[in-house]
């Protein structure tokens, strides 16, 4: 054999080795993650990219017909009620340290009083404090407010603020700040019903405040949560500038939270240092909390594997291969706890202004023709919960588990279409971004079984989706979106069904253009009812109407998975998940 032949063989061997090293050694499939990385769900609520469904695995094995799918096992629930459990407090030598969060996305600012969304409300509660927090049992816990009481007539709420509560610049947190924060939210926050009944806050520069209401408002307490009402300093923000784009939303931020903001570049890095003057003694446990931003989701997964990141955020881990990969990594743990209040529900939005879709029998037929189980298996590796049969998310106390569900039944679907006069089928368009193409193609295949042809129209980005779906002259038939409940139906449910929320140009409003006055009356009544049992009954009745009318078709309740190193303790696992203070987090090095 000549020298050249040896060289060729050596070159071939080296190339082969390189490929083998790249492909072998682990089950983790970067290529599949990179597929997910391109998922940008332009029509999902809150940042437009947080709720992107992972794309299906091309080589996903077919499930055996008679063999039940093995339930994925997740690590025991170590957090949850950590707000109340003293055993989760680290010893003195375990305090301190740095946690780096791998974050797939950007963060526009830190002020949750002017916008909703996962991004703002994950970093916001680190720098800002709120009046209350909630534990994992939907129970309010003191925070800036040491105590609170609701007047017998429900028309006022008294709050006693923590005497030690101060902003990072040393100014006391007072009722003036509470008043200003609520006013700011009323004027700027997308969730108008949160504080619509609030007429003002008495108390001035004291710590004893009275929130006055025009009507009883049971959702008020949950609206005092970290992700919904950060208390921002009136002396900083009340300068007449536009609040949505106020420079102090991201630069030189002053809050009363457990961390001080020391560096902010919304697409690169957010760095916090412990607030030594935090009003809750001994907290936070960490010295530093760093969000490494703008990462590709595949990079976040790699960073967890290499140990560069302690915890992942913003990587749309609602089922998908990345969750399975992390679960199989002996150095990581995956928790499916936390975020229960978010209530993230992907659904198919139908435009009731369309002549065909205005017939309720057609909508019911489409609901019956949807095989949610297959959809969940193919699109989400079976990790979401398909038992979602109503507008209120299934973890809420207002969800009726016995409510009407549309079981997969093609015969019933065909009969309904025949009855409606569309037995020969019809054609509709479905629009969304290319990230949701697999979902739309699967839906199209399912509906083709009853003769419905779905023409898929791809949207370039979120503004394009708005223009097509909620614009002034919108002509869409069906689209795919994901909406969040946000803790209470008043905040996150009513908006999609109320007659008076049919507003052109406003995303996540009543985009189906659906109206049922009986339903509106029920929702309004429930919004005023303090008796929990009665309130639940009212929401059950409301859900029955919506389920009968089918303005949207629910696909699942997304389960949020948190991926982190085993060394991380007390991850945020309250009902708000990451959208809560991370003051109790620590690292067991």
């Amino acid at each position: 054999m000549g020298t050249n032949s040896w060289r060729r063989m050596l070159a071939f061997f080296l190339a082969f080795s390189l490929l083998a090293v790249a492909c072998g050694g682990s089950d983790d499939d970067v290529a599949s993650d990179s597929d997910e990385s391109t998922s940008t769900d332009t029509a999902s609520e809150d940042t437009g990219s947080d709720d992107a469904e992972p794309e299906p695995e091309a080589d996903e094995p077919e499930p055996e017909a008679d063999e039940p799918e093995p339930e994925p096992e997740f690590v025991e629930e170590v957090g949850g009620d950590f707000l109340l459990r003293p055993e989760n407090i680290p010893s003195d030598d375990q305090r301190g340290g740095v946690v780096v969060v791998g974050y797939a996305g950007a963060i526009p600012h830190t002020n949750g009083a002017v916008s909703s969304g996962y991004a703002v409300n994950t970093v916001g509660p680190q720098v800002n404090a709120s009046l209350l927090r909630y534990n994992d049992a939907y129970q309010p816990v003191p925070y800036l407010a040491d105590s609170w009481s609701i007047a017998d007539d429900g028309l006022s709420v008294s709050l006693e603020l923590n005497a030690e509560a101060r902003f990072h610049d040393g100014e006391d947190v007072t009722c003036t700040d509470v008043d200003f924060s609520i006013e700011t939210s009323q004027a700027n926050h997308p969730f108008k019903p949160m504080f619509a009944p609030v007429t003002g806050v008495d108390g001035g520069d004291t710590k004893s405040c009275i929130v006055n209401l025009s009507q009883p408002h049971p959702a008020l307490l949950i609206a005092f949560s970290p992700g919904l009402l950060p208390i921002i300093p009136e002396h900083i923000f009340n300068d007449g500038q536009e609040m949505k784009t106020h420079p102090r939303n991201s630069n030189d931020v002053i809050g009363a939270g457990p961390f001080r903001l020391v560096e902010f570049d919304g697409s690169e890095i957010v760095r916090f240092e412990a607030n030594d003057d935090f009003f809750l003694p001994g907290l936070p446990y960490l010295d530093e909390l760093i969000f490494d931003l703008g990462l590709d989701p595949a990079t976040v997964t790699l960073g967890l594997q290499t140990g560069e990141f302690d915890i992942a955020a913003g990587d749309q881990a609602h089922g998908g291969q990345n969750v399975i990969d992390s679960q199989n990594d002996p150095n990581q743990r995956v928790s499916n706890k936390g975020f229960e209040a978010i209530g993230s529900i992907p659904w198919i939005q139908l435009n009731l202004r369309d002549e065909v879709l205005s017939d309720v029998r057609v909508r019911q037929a489409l609901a019956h023709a949807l095989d949610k189980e297959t959809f969940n298996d193919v699109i989400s590796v079976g990790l979401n919960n398909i038992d979602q049969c109503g507008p209120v998310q299934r973890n809420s106390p207002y969800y009726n588990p016995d409510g009407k569900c549309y079981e997969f039944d093609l015969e019933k679907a065909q009969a309904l279409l025949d009855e409606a006069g569309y037995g020969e089928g019809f054609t509709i368009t479905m629009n969304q971004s290319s990230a949701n193409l697999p979902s739309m193609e699967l839906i199209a295949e399912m509906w083709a079984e009853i003769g419905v042809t779905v023409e898929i129209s791809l949207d370039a980005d979120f503004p394009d989706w708005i223009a097509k779906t909620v614009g002034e002259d919108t002509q869409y038939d069906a689209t795919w979106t994901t909406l969040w409940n946000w803790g209470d139906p008043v905040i996150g449910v009513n908006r999609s069904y109320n007659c008076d929320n049919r507003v052109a140009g406003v995303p996540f409003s009543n985009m189906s253009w659906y109206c049922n006055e009986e339903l509106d009356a029920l929702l309004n009544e429930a919004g005023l009812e303090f008796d929990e049992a009665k309130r639940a009954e009212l929401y059950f009745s409301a859900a029955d109407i919506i389920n009968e009318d089918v303005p949207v078709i629910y696909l699942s309740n997304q389960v949020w998975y948190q991926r982190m190193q085993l060394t991380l303790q007390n991850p945020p696992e309250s009902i708000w998940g990451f959208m809560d203070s991370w003051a109790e987090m620590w690292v067991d090095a």
Partner: protein
Amino acid sequence: MKQIAVRILQSLGLILAVIVLNFMLVHLAPGDAVDSLAGTAGEMSPETTQRLRDQYGLDEPVTTQLFTYVGNVLQGDLGVSIANNNRPVTEMIGERLWPTVLLSITALTFAVVLGVIVGTFAARRPESGFSHGTTVFALVGFAMPAFWTGYLLLTVFSKNLGWLPISGMEDLRFQGGWFAKQWDLAKHLVLPALSLGLIYIAAYSRLSRASMLEVLESDYVRTARAKGLGERSVLFKHALRNGIIPIVTVLGLQFGAILSGAILVETVFAWPGVGKLAFEAVVERDTNVLLGVLFLVSLTVIIANLVTDLIYRLIDPRIRVSGPSNG
């Protein structure tokens, strides 16, 4: 000198045309930055939407917006970023410029030096295994998209071997002195530069091989060898000087291409450069930032071509004497 002045004037006209074209293209898409902001905020009332559109002049006719924009650019004002709390675009680009320059220059230097050396040696013995290997390497290098190369390198060197970091420009937990910081930076630079440079190594090795093959057949090279000059001297002092001219030409033209490649590589490696900024601006429909980056890229390409012309003259005296039309 007159020719250079004419070229500069032509370039200015070209830049203006590029600004107008970019502006019109970006504004052809439906929706605007306020729509994107509404998505980020979760929802936005029609009143707030209108208020913001008024504030940023987005309700004005496109021609009015264009004249305002061009006027501002001529005064050095690229506007503010709507998605980033009104941060000046020039400030944002300024912050991201250095990482991109560092990445691009490292990748290009790496590609040119290695590509030319490999190509030159391949040309010396065109039928050798090394020469054929170079051809295969060039084909593979061209065929691999930069982002795919990036993931491959990440898997091998970061995940499996654990030698190099996966993202960013620095270790966020880093504590240490100046030298340690530079070492940390160098470690972060290796994989992005390699991903970006690999395509160009392939290109330059192929180009220099072809060019050198031609030059090595020239009479003056034969004369140099006949005079008894050493092979290294013949190759690098005589042949390479002429053989490198096509490389310099392509180098100037590829400045724009390498910035395009940087968008993908910077996104994969979370390298905080202008490319990643452009990607973010597209996602957020941050028009001013996107236009600012496009303007910068156009400017860079035009300047790079001007500089190429000048270097051309230095390398090849015939061009200096006769002008480019005879070159």
